């Protein structure tokens, strides 16, 4: 008898728990519904540990790039006094954590900090230019289709068949003159092709959806359909591709500056610091190239982690 009672009580309790769980679950659903797309994305992004670390590193680097050169204790463009010159530079010490360079006797830490400013500026600004051009070309091709699409995509084919780093190299030498702004424009102008292909394919699929058809039926203009109806739905993959473009452009800038065709050495970038280091390569001062290189690796790693996190967070198929 008591056994039966026990069983009945247990059953009741289980039912109650299940009901409450269901209620709670429903509650949870309701709060989820009230989050917008970006809040949802952030919620998922937060769970991606590496992406959070990457975000932290990048934030730190940006902070260093912005305030670093201002608070640095050494005068940047000083002429070294003859009595302190060590022709091969000096290895890392307490006063100079990353060591001193040969030649102008600069503090490597300060060089890297100043370089962060230029390198990050170039990476992000040229990405912006590339994304704007790429999105524009891609949406035109994808939305209009037909002849325009054909012409634009053949241009993209040609640009992608060129060894683009060669072209950037030559363009920087012939047009750049070491000018940061011109270098940024050159990098932007030669890095939009991937984005435009991506945007085009997104537009091709989204423009067939019902809400676009509905918008067209009520007489919305083409421009408004492109910018208000289709583009917001294509934004996630563009953001992911853009983050990876930053990394690619930072490495490319270092490559071009390293070969001596990029930014004028009076504005240190991680690439031209390495270029100067190479001329002292036989002296064995490893600290000179080591730290700018580590800075590049750290930045690219951080950006790639963020890209991975964004991909997971913004992909509507992955529900977190």
């Amino acid at each position, binding site marked *: 008898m008591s056994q039966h009672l026990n069983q009945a009580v247990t059953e009741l309790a289980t039912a109650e728990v299940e009901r409450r769980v269901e209620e709670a679950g429903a509650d949870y659903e309701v709060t989820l519904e009230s989050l917008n797309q970006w809040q949802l994305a952030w919620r998922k992004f937060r769970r991606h540990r590496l992406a959070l670390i990457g975000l932290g590193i990048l934030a730190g680097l940006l902070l260093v790039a912005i305030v670093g050169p201002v608070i640095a204790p050494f005068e940047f463009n000083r002429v070294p006094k003859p009595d302190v010159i060590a022709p091969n530079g000096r290895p890392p010490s307490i006063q100079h954590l990353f060591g001193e360079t040969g030649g102008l006797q600069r503090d490597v830490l300060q060089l890297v900090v100043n370089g962060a400013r230029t390198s990050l500026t170039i990476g992000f600004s040229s990405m912006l230019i590339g994304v704007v051009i790429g999105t524009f070309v891609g949406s035109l091709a994808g939305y209009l289709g037909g002849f325009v699409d054909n012409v634009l995509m053949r*241009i993209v084919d*040609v640009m992608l068949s060129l*060894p683009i780093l060669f072209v950037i190299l*030559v363009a920087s030498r012939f047009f750049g003159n070491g000018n940061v702004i011109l270098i940024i424009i050159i990098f932007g102008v030669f890095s939009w092709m991937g984005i435009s292909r991506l945007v085009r394919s997104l537009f091709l699929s989204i423009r067939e959806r019902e809400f676009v058809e509905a918008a067209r039926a009520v007489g919305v203009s083409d421009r408004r359909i492109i910018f208000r109806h289709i583009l917001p739905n294509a934004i996630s993959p563009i953001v992911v591709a853009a983050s990876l473009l930053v990394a690619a452009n930072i490495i490319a800038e270092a*490559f071009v500056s390293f070969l*001596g065709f990029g930014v004028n050495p009076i504005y240190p970038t991680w690439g031209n610091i390495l270029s100067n280091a190479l001329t002292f390569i036989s002296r064995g001062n490893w600290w000179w190239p080591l730290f700018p290189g580590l800075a590049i690796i750290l930045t690219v790693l951080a950006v790639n982690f963020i890209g991975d996190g964004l991909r997971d967070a913004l992909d509507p198929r992955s529900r977190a």
Partner: protein
Amino acid sequence: MTKYIIRRVLQALPVLLGITIVVYGILLAAPGGPTARFANNPRVTAEDREAFKKAWGLDQPIPVQYCRWLGACNPEVDGVVLGVIPTPAAFIGPNGWPHFLPQGLSGATNGVLHGDFGVSIDTGEKVSTRIVRAALPTLILAGLAFLLWIAMAILIGVNAAIRRYSVFDQAATVFAYVGYAMPTFWLGIMLIFLFSGPGLNILPSSGITTTRLSPPFGSDAYWLYFGKQPVAALVDIGRHLILPVFTLIVVNIAGDSRFVRASMIEALGQDYVRTAKAKGLPGRVVTFKHALRNALLPVVTNIGLEIPFLFTGAIVTETIFAWPGIGRLTIDATRGFDYPTLMGVLLITALLTVLANLLADIAYAVVDPRIRY
């Protein structure tokens, strides 16, 4: 299949034409132009510059210059229509056939279509001679790098996929992330510090041969020496190859090992793999015969698309290690504003890129019978 290949080749032709226009356009738009090198030379007068322009055909309208450089116009025939377009007569070759046809038919010898890239402004040699001379060292370097790169990427990727989440897999993941973020040239510099710096001087850091042991690489004297002591010569080249090859392939291995791993994991999850296991086939056969062969399908395309990176990687690697190849030729030509050489190098590299893409597509169609063409 033949039809598919012919169609892909025909599709590549307009792309190639577009490339010649872009290459020509970039260099043409450069401020100063080919006479910029004389700008600060007091011994070159304005008349000299004009004479130089006339001698090199630089006084002609741009479309005429382009047409002659391409080899579709006869340089002997002057005259333009509508101010810029070459006269129709210029398109006819010496033998009466259209000028762009091969030399045997048209009798034309000028322009890239007839294998004439012009004369280097820097050295006065034919550009084609310079490119051919630089091609061998680059082929040695890039060829060896390519083979090692594919072998290592597949080896690491497959092992990581089979032993997923093992220590090896995790180490491979870390290597992939860091290697992918590493600039090629930085790796090269650090390797030189490590292995041929003042501390541990065990590997040569520059050149393709040891200069005090043998005549300059590529000269007739060198090949005589090579014939007499092939083993010593090969060992010497091999020692010089170690650091550049390693520098060149790390980034590619890092990226592709991840790609192989992902592809292999997907293949291992397929139904036919489970079926093969259920039939009682040994694990080795299932892994290598059923899964690996299918996993490598997308890898083929991917590697084809990455071949151009060997060239760009070679520019930096050859600069750091003073390797006398195409990369160094490019850098020298860029430094010296040597237009004809630069256009030749850019064009050949672009041609190889298009060819690599084409081969990748065809290879994919060959290995994957499901492809419709």
